[in-house]
């Protein structure tokens, strides 16, 4: 069986000023199944964001390959849409036009564009704000716009780099639950970078745990205690097996921190 995305022996070395080299990602391999949510988890310095940026094509790997549908990726492209932690709305466009942007530049006809934009804006719960400018929205609402904008562009995989890291705690778990809803409704494959253990266990079909300095694949963790995807976070926390997995990952985090 062939997965949607293969990361094959990917390494990334940065040249530091002074002639030294820093290995951020070291020989990482894993696969992401179509329609699944894969979470890249690890302490700071584990190269998880760098890895995601290489999958997006925004950085080039020093060695190894990223294959999408068995084809090596070269540079960024619409089939790998990305949502960033920092605010990325196009301020000069309304919410509706923001979401239409990707479709517009890719030649989707106007009526279809509008219809898809409305659908995804509805999915993230912003229908009332379709004609508003993003500057009127809160941080969480702006991230919803970014998510709708990326999904409406029909990527093969949605990449998210700590998408909820800048949000307050309440908004953060609302967004996490929204992502489960979105994944169920759209069937989109997702790769999400986080350092939040709760978030990782709640969202992931598979957790790829990376060690730090250099970033290496430490373990692929499957939260098999979950009976599929649950929409309420408290239901996941209440499951037998949750506490044990959280404890295990916290220990792994601590070990990495002491290195």
């Amino acid at each position, binding site marked *: 069986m062939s997965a949607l995305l293969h990361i094959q022996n990917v390494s990334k070395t940065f040249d530091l000023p002074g002639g030294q080299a820093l290995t951020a990602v070291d020989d990482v391999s894993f696969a992401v199944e179509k329609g699944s949510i894969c979470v890249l988890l690890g302490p700071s310095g584990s190269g998880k964001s760098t890895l995601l940026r290489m999958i997006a094509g925004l950085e080039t790997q020093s060695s190894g390959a990223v294959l999408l549908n068995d084809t090596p990726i070269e540079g960024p492209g619409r089939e790998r849409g990305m949502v960033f932690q920092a605010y*990325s709305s196009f301020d000069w466009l309304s919410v509706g036009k923001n979401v239409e942007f990707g479709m517009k530049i890719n030649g989707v006809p106007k009526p279809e564009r509008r219809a898809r934009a409305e659908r995804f804006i509805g999915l993230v719960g912003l229908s009332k704000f379709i004609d508003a400018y993003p500057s009127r929205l809160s941080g969480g609402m702006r991230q919803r716009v970014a998510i709708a904008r990326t999904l409406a562009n029909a990527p093969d995989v949605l990449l998210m780099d700590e998408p909820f890291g800048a949000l307050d705690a309440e908004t953060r778990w609302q967004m996490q639950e929204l992502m489960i809803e979105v994944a169920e409704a759209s069937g989109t494959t997702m790769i999400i970078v986080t350092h939040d253990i709760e978030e990782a266990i709640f969202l992931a079909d598979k957790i790829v745990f990376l060690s730090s300095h250099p970033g290496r694949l430490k373990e692929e963790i499957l939260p098999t205690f979950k009976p599929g995807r649950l929409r309420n976070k408290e239901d996941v926390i209440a499951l037998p097996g949750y506490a044990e997995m959280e404890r295990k990952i916290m220990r792994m985090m601590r070990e990495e921190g002491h290195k």
Partner: protein
Amino acid sequence: MSTASKGRKARLLQVRVPVSGRQALISALGVWIAFFGIWILASGLGWVNPILVPPPGKVFATIVRLFAEQGFGADVLISIGRVLIAFALASLVAVPLGVAMGAFPAINAVFAPFVSAWRYLPAPSFIPILLMWFGTGETPKLALLFLGVIFFLVTLIADHTREIRKELIETALTLGANRRVTVFQVMLPAVLPNILVAMRQMLAVVWTYLVIAEIVASTTGIGAMMMRARRFLKTDEILAGIIVIGALGMACDMAFALLHRRLFPYLEDKR
């Protein structure tokens, strides 16, 4: 909120506490009234030589007389024309070049060393050579105004373009934008409000060079009128010229502020 502020002693100076609209108006009017009050007193009580410092009433009467009887309107129009033509030419070069330098490091590498060297040369130092090259017509004046702002305008616009947040550009790329779309549909609209701010700042500088050009080498325009007035000790006309230039500069500034609000309504919501 109100009880808390009542409880506290009212203080005049508070760090970064905003003032009311009423207080702002009173403060602004107060300082102008004081300015003219001192001026009226100084000339009325004979503290100053009335030939060197005419009273404000006389200056304003002179402004009216200049426009009504002495064809000053034509001078003003000539000056405005010079400013607008030179500034339009400078913007026509600076906007595309600045954005290109900010967007493409390869273009920046070519022009940045050149532009920054010219920035350190005071434009008025070119007046003698400009007069020799272009004679005494409009060309040397326009050239001086153009040289006075072009290099600053290019640098400011390039800097603003470079400051566009990386996430905006990378979002566009991962939505499938090519180079043309990234520059024209993301970077340009993102930087446009700041381009207008840079133009507003530089337009004030054009007015400065205008007066220099008209004082040094012109028989027409507001500056030339002021130099003529000096010959006949007409200080009221000199001061009238200064006031008219100030009013025109302020009008330009307000026009730009209005244009900014009109063109970029989405920035209003941030407040």
